Structures are given as structure tokens and as C-alpha cells.
């Protein structure tokens, strides 16, 4: 009875020195991702409440160009996730050349995303939307919009640096495929967060 139970648990929780049969780096990244998920959840929950509680919430985005542009940004970030997966696959094949190429492609997509996002911000500044004021006199919009997208943009920027660092390291044969996979986890997480930020921040504020 006891042995059977142990065998069952052993197969489920088998790990010993490596819990869940993953490397400690990967497990560490997963734990970071869980905690960061909760940070973004709190921010987005607060935003959702404010959005629903204010019937006259500002809606500064026209379908064209703002929404078309942010949709393009979404597709670019999604595409970067695809290149990242291919990079990880290449790393597991020990194909260093294509790993570096896919990592650089991913970083380029990320940098393009940040660039487009910044032009978007500048346009909003010109229209009078800042983190502390809006033309409608509802500073909460500015605070939540720039706070949330800014926090996300910070994550993307850090991710771009991380990927460039990985690309250089892989080129010099300093990192293993496992390290690339861990950086991939981070990158996909950043993409995942945008999948919530984009609909909640942009699609909920399209002016009719």
C-alpha cells in the first residue's frame, strides 16, 4: 500500500535533485513568470474596474490609424514568438548559426514593437494624453494606460537586451540550448502579457 503510493507519487513528483525534472534555471524562470503574472493581473484588474466603473471613460483611439497600428504591433510581437520557438528548436539541434539568426530576428521584432509603441505614445502626448492628464479631465486614463503599457514596454526592452546578450553568447559558444529555452520562456511571457494589454487597453477605448 505504502509502496504503491510512493511509486505513484514518485512518478508524478519525480525529481530528486532536479524538481519536476527541469533545470533549476528553467524552474526559476517559471517562478518569476508566475509572480510577474500576478503583478500584471493586479494592474489589469484595477484597470478593468476603473474602465467599467466610468461610463465616460476616454476613448482616444480611432480605428484608423491607432487600432490598425496597434494590431500590426500585436502581429509583430506574435511573429517574434514564432521566430523565438524556431530559435529554441535550432538550439536543440545544436545549429548555432540559425539559433543566432532566429534570436536576432526575434530581438528585431521586439525593437520594432517598442519603436512603434513609442510613436504611438508621442501621438497621444500631442493629443493631450499624458500620464497625469487627459483632455476629458480624467487623469485615471493616463495613469492606467501609460502605467500598464509602460510596464509592458519595459519588459519588452529588457527582453530585447536579454536576447541580444543570448545571441552574442551563443555565437561565442557560452550558452547551452537550455539557456536559450529559458530566454524563450521570458520572451513568450512578454508576448502573452500583450495579448491581454492590447484588447483591454486599446480595443476597449475605440471612439465611435
Amino acid at each position, binding site marked *: 500500500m505504502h509502496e504503491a503510493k510512493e511509486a505513484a507519487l514518485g512518478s508524478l513528483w519525480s525529481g530528486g535533485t532536479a524538481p519536476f525534472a527541469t533545470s533549476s534555471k528553467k524552474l526559476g524562470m517559471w517562478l518569476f513568470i508566475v509572480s510577474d503574472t500576478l503583478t500584471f493581473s493586479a494592474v489589469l484588474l484595477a484597470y478593468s474596474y476603473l474602465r467599467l466603473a466610468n461610463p465616460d471613460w476616454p476613448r482616444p483611439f480611432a480605428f484608423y490609424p491607432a487600432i490598425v497600428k496597434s494590431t500590426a504591433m500585436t502581429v509583430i510581437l*506574435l511573429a517574434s514568438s514564432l521566430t523565438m520557438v524556431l530559435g529554441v528548436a535550432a538550439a536543440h539541434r545544436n545549429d548555432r548559426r540559425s539559433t543566432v539568426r532566429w534570436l536576432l530576428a526575434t530581438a528585431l521584432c521586439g525593437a520594432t514593437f517598442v519603436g512603434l509603441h513609442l510613436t504611438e505614445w508621442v501621438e497621444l502626448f500631442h493629443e493631450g494624453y499624458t500620464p497625469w492628464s487627459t483632455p476629458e479631465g480624467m487623469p485615471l486614463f493616463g495613469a492606467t494606460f501609460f502605467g500598464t503599457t509602460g510596464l509592458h514596454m519595459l519588459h519588452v526592452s529588457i527582453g530585447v537586451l536579454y536576447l541580444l546578450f543570448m545571441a552574442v553568447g551563443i555565437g561565442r559558444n557560452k550558452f547551452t540550448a537550455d539557456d536559450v529555452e529559458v530566454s524563450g520562456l521570458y520572451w513568450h511571457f512578454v508576448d502573452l502579457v500583450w495579448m491581454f494589454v492590447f484588447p*483591454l487597453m486599446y480595443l476597449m477605448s475605440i471612439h465611435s
Partner: protein
Amino acid sequence: MSTHGSGSGEHPAGSTRLFVTVWLWLAAVTGVEVFLGYVQLQPTLMLSLLVILSVCKAALIVAYFMHLKYERFSLTLALIPATIFCITMMLIFFFPDSMRILRLGTGAR
């Protein structure tokens, strides 16, 4: 959760074809979301639909791109229920309290 991974040596990580298929699904759901934004529904309904669709996208990303489907199932058990529990706790305690402030006011003039 069919495949339980077989150690870090070999990776049954899925083919390029699978990744592209997942990507196309993600793009398609994004398209549906943008369409919802175009037709504009009542805010509460709209927010609920968008969050549901986004959770589907997140699940696809976590399962395939972040490889969780191919890890030990115990890792999924350790990460996902705890996250859902914490977010549910936020929902349970945050919304009723904030709505109460709406109803009673802050007392400030």
C-alpha cells in the same frame, strides 16, 4: 496533457508545422478580437468576451510556445492552479470592495 516529456535529452517539442498552426490560430483569435472592437459591444460584455478570448490565446502560448504541454505534468500542477487561485482571490476581494466604495462614496467632498 498526453505527452509527459522524456527528460531534457530529447525534445518532443513539436514541429515547425505545429508552431505555424498555433501561430495562425493566435492570429485568427486576434482578428476576432479586433472585429469585436470594430462592432463595439456594451463594455461589460465586451470586456468579458475579450478576456475569455485572451485566456484561450494565453493557454495556446503556454502549452505550445512555452513548452508546458511537453514538460512533466507535475510542473503544470505546481504552476497553473496556484496562479489561477491567486488571481481568483484578487477578483473575489478586489471587486466587491471597490464596488462598495462606488456605492457608499469615499466621504470626500
